[in-house]
């Protein structure tokens, strides 16, 4: 469905060029649910803007449904439904008018606009607010209306750019229930960008993107297993000493240890016949509490994007 080959986007600026997307390649199959997971500014939105022909790639190609995006932008757009990161409704129009105008811009005939529009409002729980101005809607309702609008022209590919950003937990859950329902019923391809790990966890495949590059890609399970089979979390009064000791004893852990106040967590060092119990017993420091769990995407994410990296950037931010 999506084929990106050596895709790059460089923003020209007087103070020096900025590379937002740096030579990324990925492909998404028909009906697949694919996620881009990455921090803000990683290049997620820029990639999407190239997929819908709002931005021209500096290098590389991207095809959707075997159509080159640069060569036939309108044919590609006809196949895409997109939910933007920021609101994009006209709040001075009613819910129905927003759908109606969208349908006309996508060349949908009047009869289909009516049946599909009514059906989608019904499914998304907005039927009774059909003729109300969008400015009277809550954040969650606006998001649901945007989903209805994105589906109105029966796209083959649904692009969700941080679809639950700024929503309360209840609305977030409701938005996801609707997205999963649509996927189940219609079976369309979904391309998601997010920095919520639990959202990426439900997708078929995840690409972790950082600084414009894809640093890891695979099914959520695969990524977790590649990291380690077990994660160890320790609570101690002397976290610095524990970290130093761990690095000396297991050099492989370099860059994989996270320290938050008195809590130290790390994956079990691979390739050694060592049980968590052995490791704990060997520690020459008192430990208040220890737990062993399976790695989650959070661990994978931090492993690949680097907690040290984040520490540096926040320090830079503090300095005057």
């Amino acid at each position, binding site marked *: 469905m999506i084929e990106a080959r050596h895709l790059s986007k460089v923003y020209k600026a007087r103070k020096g060029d900025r590379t937002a997307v740096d030579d990324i390649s990925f492909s998404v199959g028909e009906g697949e649910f694919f996620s881009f997971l990455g921090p803000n500014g990683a290049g997620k939105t820029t990639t999407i803007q190239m997929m819908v022909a709002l931005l021209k790639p500096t290098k590389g190609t991207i095809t959707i449904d075997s159509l080159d995006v640069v060569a036939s932008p309108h044919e590609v757009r006809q196949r895409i439904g997109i939910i933007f990161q920021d609101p994009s409704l006209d709040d001075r129009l009613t819910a129905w008018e927003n759908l109606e105008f969208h349908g006309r811009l*996508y060349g949908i005939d009047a009869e289909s606009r009516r049946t599909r529009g009514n059906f989608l409002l019904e499914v998304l729980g907005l039927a009774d607010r059909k003729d109300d101005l969008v400015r009277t809607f809550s954040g969650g309702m606006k998001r649901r209306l945007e989903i209805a609008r994105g589906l109105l022209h029966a796209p083959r590919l649904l692009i969700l750019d941080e679809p639950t950003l700024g929503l309360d937990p209840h609305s977030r859950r409701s938005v996801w229930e609707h997205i999963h329902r649509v996927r189940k019923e219609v079976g369309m391809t979904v391309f998601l960008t997010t920095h919520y790990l639990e959202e990426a966890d439900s997708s078929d495949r995840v690409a972790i993107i950082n600084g414009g590059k894809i640093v890891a890609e695979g099914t959520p399970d695969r990524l977790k297993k590649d990291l380690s089979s077990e994660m160890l979390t320790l609570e101690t009064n002397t976290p610095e000493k524990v970290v130093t000791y761990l690095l000396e004893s297991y050099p492989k852990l370099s860059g994989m240890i996270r320290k938050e106040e008195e809590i130290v967590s790390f994956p079990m060092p691979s390739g050694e016949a060592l049980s968590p119990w052995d490791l704990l017993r060997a520690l020459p420091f008192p430990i208040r509490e220890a737990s062993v769990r399976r790695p989650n995407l959070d661990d994978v994410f931090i492993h690949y994007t680097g907690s040290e990296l984040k520490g540096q950037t926040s320090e830079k931010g503090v300095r005057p």
Partner: protein
Amino acid sequence: MTEEKALSWSVLVGKSRPLAPPLTRDLMGIYTLWQRDVIRLWRDRIRLVGSFIQPLLFLFILGGGLSPRMGAMGVTGSGGTLGYQGFLFPGIVAMSVLFTASFAGVAIVWDREVGFLKEVLVAPLSRTAVVIGKILGGATNSVVQGSLILLLFPLFHLHPSPGRILLAFLVMILIGLTQTSVGILLGVRMTSSQGFMVLMNFVILPLFFLSGALYPLDRLPPWLAMASRADPLTYGVDLLRRALTGVHFHSMLTDLVSLGLFMGTMATLSVVLFNKTD
């Protein structure tokens, strides 16, 4: 019920239908964007009433105050003398079109701010269609505003024939199209509506003051006469004044050709610039 639901979902299953020809898509897009702007104007009654008040202040307070001192401003088509308020009236009709049309530019900045512009830009239609829809929408709104003022003509002892009222409409449309294009031209690259408002004041007021809406053009200092000739609104005001009162400065041909040229240039420029903007 479940069967009906299943059927409805099946409507949404992607069948990449062939796109309509580009022209059909663009025309539908232009119509849709135009209709949206018109609906928004009618919803915004406060703006509609608010922009009705400013011209009244000019007509009755400025006009009423200056009128006794100004004497005859010319001879009307029917041979009577034209008072200052009657002279001012066409200028104020033009002003109300000018001010409303300039708002179309801010509308495009607003669309950008609230994100609706993105929704339009990822739709399968050309950017040229987006601009034309915006220009037509803004121009329609400004002509509606101007017409509300135009309806006051009996109060100023003016008796234009139906043909001349039609001419007045045509002029309002031309001013509306020109000024909406100017507004969009300035608004295309702007990301803040406040910044746009400040910029617009530097554009609207000189256009208005130089146009001869408030004073006759026949005894101007040379530099002012020059500047006035470069102002598209000058020709609009002149032609409106000719249509409504019979008094004029330029020839009808000069007025129409200049208006048309300005309109074409500004519309083309805004289309070109919008196509180049990311």
